């Protein structure tokens, strides 16, 4: 590959060709992002397919007027509802999606300081042939500790998030909302 007097470059290449072991937990982090991406793509594909389908639409003028009135009513109602929520402080929450890849799990729950670590409060739902579990939770701004409870017994930290100190002997993770 190199000239005879290029022993030093041969040694460099030998060193650089040695295998490197990457962190195996990287796989789980990738799959969490893939799962999120997959669900977004599914949703977009379905909408795109629906929009591309040709349709024949027939409507009576009276029905059109009634629909317009109903839409105006809904818009007015939503406006009122939003301002009420804002007054109650819910506007400060952010919806956070939690995802875990657990192909062999029968049940998975999200537990954390936001639901008093109660396994019954936030069950996760299987998607993609049951290999990926997901749930969305509205959380106020700040740092929250959480973990996954698999099959009611196995306590797992989120491989895709920073770890929290194991104060109680069980692994948990940290999610920061806002700020």
């Amino acid at each position, binding site marked *: 590959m190199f000239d005879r007097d*290029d022993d*030093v470059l041969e040694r460099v290449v030998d060193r*650089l060709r040695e295998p490197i072991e990457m962190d195996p937990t*990287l796989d789980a982090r*990738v799959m969490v992002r*893939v799962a999120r991406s*997959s669900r977004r793509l599914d949703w977009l594909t379905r909408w795109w397919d629906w929009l591309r389908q040709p349709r024949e639409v027939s409507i009576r003028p009276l029905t059109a007027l009634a629909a317009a009135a109903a839409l105006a009513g809904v818009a007015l109602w939503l406006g009122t509802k939003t301002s009420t929520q804002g007054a109650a402080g819910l506007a400060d929450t952010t919806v956070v999606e939690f995802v875990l890849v657990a*192909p062999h799990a029968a049940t998975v729950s999200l537990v954390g300081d936001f639901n008093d670590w109660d396994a019954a409060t936030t069950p996760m739902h299987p998607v993609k042939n049951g290999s*990926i579990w997901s749930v969305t939770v509205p959380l106020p701004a700040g740092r929250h500790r959480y973990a996954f409870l698999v099959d009611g017994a196995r306590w797992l930290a989120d491989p895709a998030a920073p770890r929290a100190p194991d104060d109680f002997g069980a692994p948990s993770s940290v999610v920061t909302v806002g700020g």
Partner: protein
Amino acid sequence: MTDADIVRRVRAGDTAAFAVLVARYRDRLGRYAVHMLGDREDAEEALQDTFVRAYRSLARCEEERFGRWVFGILVNRCRTAGRRASRRHRMFVRDDVSLARTPAAETADRADWDETVRWALGRLAPVLREAFLLKHVEDMEYEEMARYTGVGVSALKMRVKRACDRLRVLLTEVERV
């Protein structure tokens, strides 16, 4: 199961099967990213981005060429990540994970040599480092390198030659000290 089998399964909706490809190519791609970026954290980030992008555009992948195709995505991600890293001035730190896995007796010599190689590689301009790694570490033909980088074959040959010359000078300087 071949890469092509897995690509077909993922395209058919079996997202979890993609994990097999990630596990299969993680270390192989990781080596290039670590050497190119000189930092494990940056390399892992580039690797994650690479796999997610590969998943999203899997429809464009020729089933039999997944390995080469995903490597092309990584080369581009490393270019972007390298520009970010150079702005942070955090290039080429010690790879303590590799050192920790080396037997104790070899650690001192090995660590010195590793440090020297990393230092010399880090002194190369990114385009020279990229050309050197693709040619001599990943063992690619110039035509293939041209497809990945968008640079002409003669320019790549020049870059590889300049990288070798520069490394030779740098390593000779070290040996004299």
